[in-house]
C-alpha cells in the first residue's frame, strides 16, 4: 500500500505500555480481589465457604480436571455438539438467507414463518424437541442448529438485501448476466454480513448448549455444571463456566482476525 502514512500523535511510552496491558491488568486485579474476598469469607462466613471457592481453588480444580482428562471429556462432548449443530445451521442458513434476500417470492413465504418463530426463545422449544427426538445427542444438536439458524439466516438475508443498488446497475451496464451479478457482485458485497452471521451463530450455539446439556446428558460442560450442583462442587461449576467463556472469546477473536484479513478492502 502506498499513500501518505497517517502520522500518529506521539505519546509517552509508559502510557502506550499501560494501554496495551490494561485488559491483563484488569483481569489480574479481579482475580486477586476474588481470592481476597474468598479468604475474607472463610473468616467472616458471609456464606458457607464451600459455596464460594476463591480463584486459586478454582484454578487448582481446573488444573486437576485438565490432568485427569475430565475437562477434555466434557469439553469434547460440548464442542462436538456445537460444531454439528452449528454446521447444520450454517449449511441451511447461508444459502436460504441468500436466496430469500434475492427472491421476493421465497422471502414472502419465509417471512411470516420466521416472524412467528423468532420471538420464541429457543430454550422454550427445548423440552418439545426432547419429547420428539429423545434425550440423546440428536435433540441437542437439532436444538443448537435451530437456535443458530435464525442468527445466520437473518444476518445473511439482511446482508444480501442491503447490497447497494448502484453496484447492481453498474454490473448491468457492463453486460453481466444475472448469474454473474449474483456471483461477482451480490455475494462479495454481502460476504462481510454472512461472515458476521456465522460468528454470531457460533456464539449463539455456545449460549444454548449449556441449557441443552442440563437435560439428559452424561457429558458436556452444561452437564458438568448441573451435575456438580448436586455435590456442591462450586469450583467445578466455575471451571465449566470459565471454559465456555474462554472458548467463546477465542472463537470471536479468531473470527474477527479472519474478517479483517478477508475484508481488507473495507479498511
Amino acid at each position: 500500500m502506498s499513500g501518505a502514512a497517517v502520522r500518529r500523535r506521539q505519546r509517552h511510552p509508559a502510557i502506550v505500555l499501560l494501554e496495551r496491558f490494561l485488559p491483563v491488568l484488569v483481569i489480574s486485579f479481579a482475580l486477586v480481589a476474588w481470592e481476597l474476598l474468598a479468604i475474607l469469607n472463610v473468616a467472616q462466613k458471609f456464606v458457607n465457604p464451600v459455596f464460594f471457592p476463591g480463584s486459586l481453588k478454582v484454578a487448582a480444580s481446573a488444573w486437576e480436571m485438565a490432568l485427569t482428562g475430565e475437562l477434555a471429556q466434557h469439553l469434547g462432548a460440548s464442542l462436538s455438539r456445537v460444531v454439528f449443530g452449528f454446521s447444520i445451521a450454517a449449511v441451511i442458513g447461508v444459502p436460504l438467507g441468500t436466496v430469500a434476500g434475492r427472491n421476493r417470492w421465497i422471502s414472502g413465504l419465509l417471512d411470516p414463518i420466521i416472524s412467528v418463530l423468532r420471538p420464541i426463545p429457543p430454550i422454550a422449544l427445548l423440552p418439545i424437541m426432547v419429547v420428539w427426538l429423545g434425550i440423546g445427542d440428536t435433540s441437542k444438536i437439532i436444538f443448537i442448529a435451530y437456535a443458530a439458524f435464525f442468527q445466520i439466516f437473518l444476518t445473511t438475508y439482511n446482508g444480501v438485501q442491503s447490497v447497494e443498488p448502484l453496484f447492481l446497475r453498474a454490473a448491468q451496464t457492463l453486460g453481466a448476466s444475472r448469474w454473474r451479478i449474483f456471483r461477482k457482485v451480490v455475494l462479495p458485497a454481502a460476504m462481510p454480513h454472512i461472515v458476521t452471521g456465522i460468528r454470531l451463530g457460533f456464539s449463539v450455539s455456545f449460549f444454548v448448549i449449556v441449557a441443552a446439556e442440563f437435560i439428559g446428558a452424561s457429558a458436556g460442560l452444561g452437564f458438568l455444571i448441573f451435575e456438580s450442583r448436586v455435590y456442591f462442587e462450586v469450583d467445578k461449576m466455575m471451571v465449566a463456566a470459565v471454559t465456555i467463556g474462554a472458548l467463546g472469546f477465542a472463537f470471536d477473536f479468531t473470527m474477527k482476525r479472519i474478517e479483517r484479513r478477508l475484508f481488507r478492502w473495507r479498511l
Partner: protein
Amino acid sequence: MQGQTGAASVQARGIRKVFTTGSTDTLVLDDVSVTVDPAGFTCLLGPSGCGKSTLLNMVAGFVEPDEGEITVDGRRISSPGADRGMVFQEYALFPWLTAAENVAFGPEGRGLPRAELKRVVASYLKLVGLEKFGDHYPNRLSGGMRQRVALARALANQPRVLLMDEPFGALDALTRQLLQEELLRIWLAEKATIIFVTHSIREAVSLATSIVVMTRRPGRIKETIKVDLPYPRVQSSREFIEIERHLDALVRAEVEA
C-alpha cells in the same frame, strides 16, 4: 451484444414519464425527443429536477418511458446492456475488487482469454494514467482517481455509447478541469458517442458538440445548440463567452420561472 463496433446513434422519440409517490403524480418528462449523432459529444443541460438524469437512465435501460421509445442504431431499448456503458457520479466501483479487477469486470464477463484480458486492462489503465495503481483497492484512491478507474472500466467493455451522469460533480474544481481535458482526449482518440449530463454551463460548453437544454419540471427540450469550436476550447474566447451567456440566459429563465 458485441458484434457491431464503433459509435452508435441514439434517438429518443416522444418520451413521457410520470413518477408516482403515494397519491401524487409528477410529470418528469413530457414529449422529449432528442437525436444524438454517432461519435458526437452531447450534453444534457438543465436545472436540478429537470429529468435529465431520468432521461439518461432510460437510455441505460434502468427506467422505462411511459410513452415514446428510445433506440440505439434503430434498435429499441428494453433493458440495460453492454452496448451502453455508464459512468456514475458516485463512481460505483466495486470496493472488493482492485482497480485492475474493476476494469476487467466487463471483458472478463465476455470470456476474454487471460492474456488478452491482462493486455486490455493494462492498456485502459494506461489510457487514464493509472498504470501504477492497478492493484489498489478503490478506498485507497482519491475521488479523481476513482472516477478515472470508473471511466476505464466503462471503456474497457467497448460500449457503443458512453453515458455519464454528472461524473465530475463530486470532484474539486482543479481535478474536475483535469478530468474534463482527459475525457476530451480519450473521446477524440476512441471516437465514442457520449451522452453527458451536467448542470454546469461552463462544463457543457467546454466539452460538447451538441448541448440539449431542458426546461424545469416537467422536462422538455428548450433548445438544442451545436457547438463547433475547436478543441481545446479557450474559456476566455469571445465565442465561448457568447455561447455561455446565451445558455446562462436560457437556464436562468428556467430556474427563476
